[in-house]
């Protein structure tokens, strides 16, 4: 219970700071929509081809947008050595990991809520009825991204070129999540159901559960090293 209480406290603090500064959310939102417009002007394929390309294009946008958010994840803690203030406290380090992952998840979901429908409008896709399933898959993929992103963001926190190092460490580790998410989304867009993509969906859920657990257990070592 103490873990959840501390997670809530840290999440409240991060959301309050973001509400006041709005740098991460606005940057992510504008970058995400900008990428969609770049894709829109770069490709002009037939709607059936777009449906095949949509998952990859969307995840390309989410990856770059999410990386911007991750680069800012510990920004408040870097100011005034506030990370030291947190590490000095009896706070469970797992709570810090959960709060940062949840905070990043909130930002990503807010961006996705705008970006996915905008993609459908820009590329004139008609499969609006499939959006709930696609949102579910995207959410599972985003959880994986946020969990792994928080761990790698903490690992690179004290590195000099952390903004450059973060994607170099994160992207290779993200391959299973990206692959599983894209395969699931492709299947849903092609057949209207998960069908053959169920093993990929299981992989995605397994990945999320494993890295969420690993993150809580090892964050103490990661953040204090």
């Amino acid at each position, binding site marked *: 219970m103490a873990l959840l209480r501390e997670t809530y406290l840290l999440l409240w603090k991060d959301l309050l700071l973001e509400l006041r500064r709005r740098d991460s959310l606005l940057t992510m939102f504008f970058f995400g929509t900008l990428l969609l417009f770049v894709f829109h002007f770069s490709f002009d394929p037939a709607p059936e081809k777009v449906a095949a390309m949509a998952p990859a294009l969307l995840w390309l946008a989410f990856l770059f947008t999410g990386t911007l958010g991750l680069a800012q994840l510990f920004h408040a803690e870097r*100011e005034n*050595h506030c990370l030291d*203030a947190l590490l000095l*406290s009896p706070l469970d380090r797992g709570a810090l990991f959960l709060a940062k992952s949840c905070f990043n998840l909130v930002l990503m979901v807010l961006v996705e809520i705008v970006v996915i429908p905008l993609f459908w409008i820009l590329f004139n896709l008609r499969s609006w009825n499939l959006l709930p399933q696609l949102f579910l898959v995207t959410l599972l993929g985003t959880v994986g991204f946020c969990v792994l992103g928080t761990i790698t963001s903490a690992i690179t926190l004290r590195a000099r070129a952390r903004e450059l190092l973060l994607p170099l460490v994160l992207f290779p580790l993200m391959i299973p999540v990206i692959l599983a998410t894209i395969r699931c989304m492709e299947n849903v867009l092609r057949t209207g159901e998960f069908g053959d993509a169920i093993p990929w969906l299981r992989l995605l859920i397994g990945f999320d559960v494993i890295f969420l657990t690993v993150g809580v257990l090892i964050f103490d070592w990661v953040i204090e090293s």
Partner: protein
Amino acid sequence: MHITVEKLAKAYGLLWALREINFELKPGEFVAILGPNGAGKTTLLRILAGLVLPTGGSVRLDGAMLSRGTTALRTKIGFLAPADHLYENLTVKENLHFFTSLYHQKKNFDAINQALKTVNLTDRAGEYVVNLSSGMKCRLSIAKWQLLQPDVLLLDEPYGVLDGSGVDLLEGFLQGQCAEGRIVVVASHHVSRVLKISSRALILNQGRLTFDEVKREPWPNFDKAYGEFLPHGESWRS
């Protein structure tokens, strides 16, 4: 609370910041850590705070080793960094509320208001910390640790940002902590000021503990030990 430091060593790469440090701190002691730049004062404080892991040796709090994962022990240690450890885009009151909750000491608004009154920040309670001067941030840090009441309070160069009344406030607070049996450890270059209120002095030089004595008057050993770090012909009393 007793602190035992044994054979403490810290290396950054090939550079030894601390070597073979041994001392004990007893309840109610007010210890000044002195020495030239790069002597290892801040490293020692950060190890005592549990923020840096030593390369060798140990720090024990009432016999329990301070290491990674000993979160329960951390409620007993405070680190007052004059203008740091505060969230700039939270208000003065929100910072106090956040940190007291983090230490599982959720204080009611009366306690927070009282702490702010003590440090003369009542009329700034709703202001963002980013708008405060360094001296005011230090006052806020004093209020924070006044609410959290740790058994050991560590301070790194606290005098630089405070005005006259701020110094009085800080010294009154620290003396009050010692009177209640808590340990206060201050690292500072303001030798005459810190020695005025401390009960013991440690001198570090190039990572080694070169002096450790309880304060007395006159104090020729200290004059001799600290004299080598002063400009020629000057006394630390001046």
